[in-house]
C-alpha cells in the first residue's frame, strides 16, 4: 500500500473515532429519528412477498414491509408480533393465536383473522416453500372473531416446532389484495403491502428498491428511519467498494467476497460479524450419488471424508467465519445440537488410502484409482473454493475429480432431477428446527426433482423411523434425544457429508445503532434501527 493511501485510511479512522466506543455506550445514546438505511441487495428476486417465498433475498426486503405472526427476541425465543399470544391443545392438534388489535395494512384496511386464514390456507400451505411441508397436515384455520385464528391440524403439531418456524414461515399477506386472481401473478408480489414499519415505494429492477417510513405503524413512534434503500449490486467487489465509500451501510448474508470480508473486518469503520444471523446457519455439503456403485460403498465415502483436511481448508480459505461441522445439526442450534460426541472423519490420508485399497480400488496408471464428476452449486465463493479443494485433496489419494460447472438451473436439474452426478456440493440451510429443512436431506421417498432433498438414492429404514418419530414428538427432551440418534445414524452411514458449518456474515457500518439485536436480524423488521449522525 502506498503511503498516501495509508494516510487517507488513518485520517478516516481518526474521524470515525467517535463511533469507536464500546457497544454498551450505544444503548445510553438517545435514538435519533430520520436517516436513510442503504442495504446491499445481491440477489434480485421475482417476488418480494415473504408469505409466498421463503428465502433470504425476500426477507431482506419483504421482512421490513410485511410481518410474521411470531418473531424472535434477542435471546432467540419466540416473541409476539402480529400474534400477541398463543396456546396449544393437549393433543397438539389445535393451536390458537390471539391477534394484535389496531393494526392496519399500508393501504389503510384493518388487519384481521381472515387475513391469517387466507394466508395460511392459500399461501403457506399451497405455495410457500417449506411452508407447504410444514403445514402439510393443516386442515383449516377457524376465525371465531376478528382477533382469533385457530389452526386445526390432522396430526399433532409440536408447538415448539411451529413457533420456531413461524418467524420465517409465518408472514401474513392482505387477503383483500390477493383474494381475486392468480396469486403468483399478482402485481403486489413485487410491490408488497404489509403491516410493517416500512411502506414499499419503488422498485427499479436491476438498480434499487425504496421503502419509506410507515407513519401508522402499530409500535408507537417507530420506526426511527425515514427510508430504506436497497441497492442492487451483483458484483461483490463493487459492493465492497460502495461499502467503503459509505454508499452502502449494511451488507447481509455473506454477500461480499471472503477476501473483502476479512479486509473490512480489520477496518475500524465496519463491524464484520456473524451476530444477528444465528438463526441462519448453513453447512457445506458433499453429496454422494448411491447409483454409482463406487460411492454406494461406505468405505469409499468414508475414505473421501478422511482424505480432506477440513481444518486446513477453513483456516486458509474461509477464515474466522466458518468452523468444522459435526453433522447436519449445527452447533448454534442449542435446542437440538447433540451433547454427546458423534462419529467423525478426521483428516487421515493413510486411512483414506487403506479404505480405498480395501474397497478394491487399486491405483492404476498415473496413480489414479478412479474418476468422479463433482458438480458444485454455482452460488457462493466458498462452494467454488471447496470444490477445488476437494478436487485437489482427492487427487492426493488417487481419485481424479472432474468439476462439472453448471448454472443454477442446470445444477438443480442435473443433480436433483436427472441424478446425473457422482459428487455434488452446495449448502444445506438449517432453519431452527431439523424438521423444517434438514430431515428432507435424508428421508427416503422424496419426490424426484425436489431440490435439496434426498435424491442420492440412499434409503435407510432406521433413519426414516427416527425422523418420523421426531416429527410428531411433542416432548422437547424426547425430540432432542431422537435427533441425537438421527445424527449418529447419518454420520455413520454418511449419505451426505456436512463437514463445515457457517453462519452468514454481515458487514455493518458502525454508524448503525441497534443492529444485530436478534438472531434473524437481517430478515427482521428493523423497527428499532437508527442511524447516528
Amino acid at each position, binding site marked *: 500500500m502506498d503511503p498516501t493511501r495509508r494516510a487517507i485510511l488513518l485520517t478516516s479512522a481518526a474521524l470515525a473515532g467517535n463511533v469507536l466506543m464500546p457497544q454498551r455506550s450505544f444503548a445510553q445514546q438517545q435514538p435519533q429519528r430520520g436517516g436513510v438505511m442503504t442495504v446491499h441487495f445481491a440477489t434480485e428476486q421475482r417476488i418480494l412477498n415473504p408469505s409466498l417465498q421463503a428465502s433470504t433475498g425476500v426477507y431482506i426486503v419483504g421482512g421490513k414491509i410485511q410481518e410474521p405472526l411470531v418473531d424472535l427476541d434477542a435471546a432467540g425465543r419466540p416473541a409476539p408480533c402480529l400474534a400477541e399470544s398463543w396456546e396449544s391443545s393437549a393433543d397438539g392438534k389445535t393451536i390458537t393465536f390471539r391477534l394484535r388489535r389496531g393494526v392496519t395494512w399500508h393501504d389503510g384496511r384493518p388487519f384481521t383473522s381472515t387475513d391469517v386464514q387466507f394466508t395460511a390456507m392459500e399461501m403457506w400451505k399451497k405455495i410457500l416453500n417449506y411452508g407447504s411441508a410444514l403445514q402439510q397436515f393443516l386442515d383449516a384455520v377457524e376465525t371465531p372473531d376478528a382477533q382469533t385464528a385457530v389452526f386445526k391440524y390432522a396430526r399433532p403439531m409440536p408447538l415448539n416446532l411451529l413457533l420456531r418456524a413461524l418467524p420465517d414461515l409465518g408472514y401474513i399477506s392482505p387477503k383483500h389484495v390477493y383474494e381475486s386472481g392468480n396469486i403468483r401473478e399478482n402485481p403486489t408480489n413485487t410491490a408488497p403491502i404489509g403491516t410493517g414499519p416500512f411502506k414499499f415505494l419503488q422498485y427499479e429492477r436491476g438498480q434499487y428498491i425504496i421503502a419509506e417510513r410507515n407513519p401508522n405503524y402499530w409500535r408507537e413512534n417507530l420506526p426511527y428511519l425515514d427510508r430504506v434503500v436497497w441497492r442492487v449490486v451483483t458484483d461483490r467487489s463493487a459492493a465492497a467498494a460502495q461499502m467503503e465509500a459509505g454508499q452502502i451501510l449494511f451488507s447481509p448474508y455473506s454477500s461480499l467476497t471472503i477476501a473483502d470480508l476479512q479486509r473490512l473486518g480489520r477496518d475500524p469503520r465496519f463491524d464484520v460479524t456473524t451476530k444477528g444471523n444465528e438463526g441462519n446457519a448453513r453447512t457445506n455439503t458433499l453429496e454422494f450419488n448411491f447409483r454409482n456403485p463406487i460411492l454406494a460403498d461406505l468405505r469409499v465415502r468414508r475414505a473421501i471424508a478422511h482424505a480432506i483436511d477440513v481444518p486446513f481448508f477453513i483456516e486458509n480459505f474461509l477464515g474466522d467465519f466458518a468452523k468444522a461441522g459435526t453433522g447436519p445439526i449445527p452447533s448454534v442450534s442449542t435446542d437440538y445440537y447433540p451433547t454427546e460426541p458423534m462419529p467423525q472423519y478426521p483428516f487421515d490420508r493413510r486411512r483414506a488410502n487403506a479404505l480405498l485399497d480395501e474397497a478394491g480400488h487399486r491405483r492404476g496408471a498415473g496413480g489414479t484409482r478412479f474418476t468422479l464428476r463433482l458438480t458444485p452449486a454455482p452460488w457462493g465463493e466458498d462452494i467454488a473454493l471447496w470444490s477445488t479443494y476437494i478436487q*485437489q485433496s482427492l487427487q492426493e489419494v488417487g481419485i481424479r475429480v472432474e468439476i462439472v460447472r453448471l448454472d443454477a438451473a442446470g445444477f438443480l436439474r442435473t443433480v436433483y432431477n436427472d441424478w446425473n452426478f457422482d459428487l455434488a456440493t452446495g449448502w444445506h440451510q438449517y432453519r431452527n428446527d431439523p424438521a423444517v429443512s434438514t430431515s428432507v436431506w435424508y428421508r427416503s421417498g422424496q419426490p424426484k426433482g425436489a431440490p435439496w432433498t434426498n435424491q442420492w438414492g440412499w434409503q435407510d429404514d432406521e433413519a426414516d423411523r427416527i425422523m418420523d418419530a421426531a416429527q410428531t414428538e411433542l416432548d422437547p427432551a424426547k425430540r432432542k434425544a431422537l435427533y441425537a440418534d438421527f445424527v449418529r445414524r447419518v454420520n455413520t452411514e454418511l449419505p451426505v457429508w456436512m463437514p463445515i458449518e457457517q453462519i452468514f456474515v454481515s458487514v455493518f457500518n458502525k454508524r448503525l445503532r441497534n443492529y444485530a439485536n436478534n438472531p434473524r436480524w437481517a430478515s427482521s423488521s428493523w423497527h428499532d434501527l437508527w442511524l447516528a449522525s
Partner: protein
Amino acid sequence: MKAFLRGYLRSPPAMIGLLLLLAIVAMAISADWLFPRDPLALAGRPLQWPQGNPRFPLGTDNSGRDIAAQIFHGARISLLIGVVATAIAILVGIVVGALAGYHGGWVDDALMRLTEAFQTLPNFLLLLVLVAVFGSDLSTVTIAIGAVSWPAPARLTRAEFLTLRNREFVQACRTLGMSDARIIFREILPNALPPIIVYASVVMAVAILLESALAFLRLSDPNVASWGNLIGLGRDVLRVQWYVSAIPGLAILLTVLAVSLVGQGLNDALNPRLRKR
C-alpha cells in the same frame, strides 16, 4: 516464397510478434518440465504475493495454486483454443464463403442469410447460449467459439471469390471444361487464401479473448488451468490482491499482441504494395 520471408523478416514489429509467439509456445512446451505438478493442485497458502515466497515467483491465487504454473500451463490452453477454434472457423468460413461466392444465385442468397443471421445475433450472446446448453468443458467451449467465429471469414472468402470468379484465369479454366469443385478448390482457393490466412490471426486473437471473457464469467472449463479462469477467480480478491487478475491478463494481452503482430507481418509480406507504407 523467399521474397515473402525476406519481406517478413525485415519488419521489426513482425519479428517482435514472432519472437513473442515463439516464447509463448516455448512456455506451453516447457510447462510440463518446469512445473511437473498439476497446476490446479494445492501448492501452498493462498494469496501469497509475487516475489514474497521464492517457491512462487508469481505468487499463489485464492485457491492456493501456483500462479506461475497456471500461466505456463495456461499458455497451452489459450494456444490450443486459439488454434483449434480458428481452424474450425476458417474451415467452415471457407466452405460457406467459397460456395456462396462461386455459385452466386440462390446458393449465395441462402448461405448469406445464414451468415447474416449469425452476424446479426451478438456473437458473445450466442456463445453464452451455446455454453449454457452444451456445458463448459474445453472441447465444447472451443467448438462453440469456432461456431460463432466463422461468419467473418465466410464473408471475406465470399468477397475474394466474387472478385476472383470473374477473373479471366477462372473463365479460362471454365472454357477448358474444368469442373466447379476443381475450379473452387484447386484454382481459386489458393489465390483467395492469403487474405484469409492473414484474417486467421484476427480470428485467433478474438478466440483467445472470447475464451477469457467466458472464463471471466465463470463459464469456461474449470478443470484446466486457463488464464481467463484465473482472472475470473482473481476478481474476488481484486481490490487488494490485484496481481491474481493482472498477471494472467498481461499474459493474454501479450499473446493476442503476438498473434496480431504476426498477422500484420504476414499481411505486409503477402501484400508487398502495402509494405512500403
